[in-house]
């Protein structure tokens, strides 16, 4: 979901995406983790790739979301919000939510 969200915000190269995810607060995200993940998403039809010429080296692939990728992001976001609100409700009910703990 984080990969799709980052690519929805801005299409990127695999290495650039790893850097952006790390900078966004996901901790140390290696290219070795991101590249296989991108491969899976691309094979699932959620990502589109396009060759982009680079003035500094060989042409590189830029990944962006397909229509199916945007739909998947929307679904996963709704699922995430629902599950986090459910967990929050349980935490509030049990009194362990930050600031409400007795």
């Amino acid at each position: 979901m984080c990969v799709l969200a980052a690519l929805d915000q801005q299409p990127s190269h695999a290495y650039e995406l790893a850097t952006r995810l790390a900078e966004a607060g996901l901790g140390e995200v290696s290219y070795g983790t991101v590249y296989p993940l991108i491969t899976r998403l691309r094979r699932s039809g959620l990502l589109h790739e396009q060759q982009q010429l680079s003035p500094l080296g060989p042409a590189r692939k830029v990944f962006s979301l397909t229509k199916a990728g945007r739909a998947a992001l929307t679904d996963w976001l709704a699922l995430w919000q629902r599950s986090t609100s459910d967990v929050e409700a349980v935490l509030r009910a049990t009194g362990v939510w930050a600031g409400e703990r007795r």
Partner: protein
Amino acid sequence: MITPSGRDRDAPAAVQSVVRDAERSWRRLGVPRALRDPVVADVCADLHAAYGQGRTPETVLGMTVAEFAEQVARENGWLVAWPMYGRLLASAAVGAAAAILAGFALVLPSMYLVLAAVGHVLVWAGSDAEGYRESSLNAGIVYAMYALFGVGFVAAVLTAVRWGLKAAVQLRQTLSAGAVLIAVSAAVSVPLAVAIGHVSRFSSAPLVVAAEFGLVLGLAGAALVAARAWALRLS
């Protein structure tokens, strides 16, 4: 500059080394070049860009090259039983060439030496030397040496295949089936090659020799391909 394998030749040596190792892993799995080349180019370009920002390939990957190559292979659906017919036949050709060269260099001279030695022993023992040349003992020795060469040929071919396909799945089954099917192919092709020899009055004309070798080697190659196909059907 981009090499035929997709690697960026201008990439630093550290990047080239990592990419070469990853590519070797995929090649050992039997991933066809047409599939692995775009990925090689892709990874090489990304690692080259990262290197330009002062990050070594090892740091960027965050794991060993073998682990990275394995994950990429899994996500690409490459962890399957590839037929690898091209490498199978190329390896077999290397083994066959070695066996044929060794045959001409060792087996034929040995055969003449053994025949001459047995002849001398028989003459010494008082037997008829002329009769010996036409005897079944002489023919038996010749056929035994040819059989020995045949066994050595099959062993050399299978050893070369084992070396060439060492990372391939179903290798043991391929070799077992290959040993049987090559023997069967030889049982068909050798009499046919001998028949061609008889018809051509054992001519050494290049076309005749090529036909005889082509028949034996072609059927042996077909037997190997059939063995590999059979082994893959079991997986």
